[in-house]
C-alpha cells in the first residue's frame, strides 16, 4: 500500500464524512484521484462501508448491547464458514468474529431491549445443531468504540503559545 492510500484510509477511519476536497488536501492527491482510489478500495473490498459511531445514551435511546460467546462443534458437513454465514444473517448482529481461546465465535449484538438479545440467542443461535454452548455478556457502559472515546478526557491543557 502506498503512502497516499494509507493516508486516505487514516483520514476515513478518523472521519468517514470527510469531503473529497478535504481528503485530497490531507493526502496530497487531487480530487479526481481520491475518487478513483476510493472506488478501487471499495471494489476490492478493502473499504467495506462508512458508518457513524453513536453514543445512544446521549440521545436517550434505549439500546442494549451484548457480546455473545458461542462454542461450536464441527462435523464433516459443517465448517466455521457455514456457521458464521448462518449467524450473520440476523440483523441483530453488529459484528461476528472467529476467535482463538475458550470459545469459537464472538458475536456483538444489539437491540432495543434485553428481550431482543435473549430472543436472538435462544431462537437464532442456540438451536443451530453445531452450537454446543453460548455465554451472553451484556454491555453495561461503553467507554470507547472504534477508537472514539465516549468520556471527556480531551481537555487540552497546553499553554496557548509555546516555543
Amino acid at each position, binding site marked *: 500500500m502506498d503512502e497516499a492510500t494509507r*493516508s486516505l484510509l487514516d483520514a476515513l477511519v478518523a472521519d468517514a464524512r470527510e469531503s473529497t476536497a*478535504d481528503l485530497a*488536501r490531507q493526502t496530497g492527491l487531487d480530487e479526481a484521484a481520491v475518487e478513483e482510489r476510493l472506488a478501487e478500495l471499495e471494489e476490492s473490498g478493502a473499504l467495506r462501508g462508512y458508518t457513524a459511531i453513536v453514543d445512544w445514551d446521549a440521545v436517550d435511546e434505549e439500546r442494549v448491547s451484548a457480546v455473545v460467546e458461542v462454542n461450536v462443534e464441527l462435523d464433516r458437513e459443517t465448517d466455521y464458514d457455514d456457521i458464521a454465514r448462518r449467524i450473520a444473517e440476523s440483523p441483530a448482529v453488529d459484528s461476528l468474529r472467529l476467535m482463538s481461546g475458550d470459545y469459537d465465535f464472538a458475536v456483538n449484538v444489539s437491540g432495543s431491549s434485553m428481550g431482543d438479545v435473549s430472543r436472538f440467542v435462544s431462537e437464532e443461535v442456540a438451536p443451530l445443531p453445531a452450537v454446543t454452548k453460548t455465554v451472553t455478556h451484556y454491555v453495561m457502559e461503553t467507554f470507547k468504540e472504534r477508537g472514539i472515546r465516549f468520556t471527556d478526557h480531551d481537555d487540552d491543557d*497546553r*499553554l*496557548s*503559545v*509555546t*516555543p
Partner: protein
Amino acid sequence: MSGNGNGNGERAGNGEGVGDGDRAGTGDHPATDGGTAEGSPRTEEGEEDSARFAPADRVESVPPSGIREFFEVAENRDDVISLGVGEPDFTAPWPARSAAIDSLERGRTSYTANRGMLDLRRAIAERVTRYGQSYDPDSEVLVTTGASEAVDLAFRAFVNPGDTVALPTPTYVSYEPGVRFAGGEPLPVHTRHEDDWALTPEALREAGADEADVLVLCYPNNPTGATMDADEMDAVAAFCREHDLLVVADEIYAALTYDGDHQSVATRTGMRERTVVINGFSKAYAMTGLRLGYAMGPKPAIDAMTKVHQYAMLSAPTTAQHAAVAAIERCDDEVERMRREYDRRRRYVVSRLRELGIEVSEPGGAFYAFPRVAEVAPDGDARAFATELLEAEGVAAVPGTAFGTGGEGHIRISYATGLDDLKEAMARLERFLS
C-alpha cells in the same frame, strides 16, 4: 561579576533614586530581612528590590521572548484556536508513562550517573543508528534535562567570550539568548523562503560565517518545518570543514520527517569529530513535560558538556529516564502513528493556505508551516497580521519575527492540533482575509 555598564557604581537598568547602587552592600537580603508574617518586605515602589536584582549585562541585553509576549495576548482570550503551540497534542505513549509510574513505585528516586542511566544511553546509541549515527554509550552520550539543556550546555562548553556563533534565521527562539548568556556573539545567517529555508554555503558566506567559530543547525526546523536534503547537507558540511566550524546540530524533530530520510550533518565525512548532535524525547514521543534530552559527540565534547552539566544539574530526572527507556524500546508504533497524523495535517494546512493565495514552502518535517503573509498583512507587517488575526478571529499564530529577523513577513502555524480545529482555524483565516 560583570562590569556595571554605566561606570558610576550603579547597575544598569535600576532607574533613579536608588541609594547605594551596590547589590551586596546593604546586607539586608530579602529572605532574612524583616521576618513579618506577610513574608519578604517590599519597598513602596519596588525600586530597592529592582536595584538589588538588576540583571547582569548579558541578561539585560537579551529581550523578552517574542513568543512569550504573544502568549500573554492569546492567554487572555477564551475563544482562541491556538496554532501557536510548539508541543504535540498527543499524550506520551502509555508504556513510557507506565515505566515512569513503575519507577516511582519501586522507589527509584535517587540521582543517576551524571551522564544518565547506562541502559538509557545504550538505548539511545542503538536508536540513532537509524540516522547513520554511531556513538559509544559509555563516553559519547550525555542525557540532559530536555534538549534545551543540551543546547545551553553546548554553548557554555564551547563558546568563549567574543566567539561568533552563526545562527540560521529564522530559528528556534532560545539559540540567540543562549549564545549571549554564554558570552558569544550571534551571527544571523538569513535563510530564504525561495530556498525552502534550506541553509546554503552562499548564505553562510554572505553572512560572514566563514569567520565564525560555531554553527547551529536545526533541521527539521522550528519554525519553518524545513528539512535539508542530502546534497544540501553535504554542501553545508563542506563549508564547515573548509572554515573549521564546530557544529551544534539540534535534531529534536528528526523522527518527524515526512519526505525522505532525516539528514544529519554529523554523518558527513569529517563532521563527526566537529559536531555535537542534540536530540530528545519531547517532540517524537510527546514527552515535553518529562524534560528529557541528550547530546552525542566525540568524548572530549561530551566530557566538557558533562562537566557543566554535573555542576548545574547533577543528572537528568530519574523518573523521566525510566520513561525514556520504555519509549525507545516499546513505542515505535505510537511514534509512527503520530507521525502519520501530523503528515495528514501538514498536507491539509499547506493545501488550504495555498488555496487562500498564501505562499508557503512545503514543510518536510517538525509540525510547523511558515507561510508568507507580507502580501496580505497591513503594511507587510506579520506581527500586525498575527495580532489582528487573533483579535478579529481568535486564531493565534506566532509572528515570524519571534524567530529572528529572518522571519519577517511570515507567521508560524503549528499543526500540532486536531484536524477539526485546524479546519475551523483555516475557515476563520479565510473569513479574515476576505
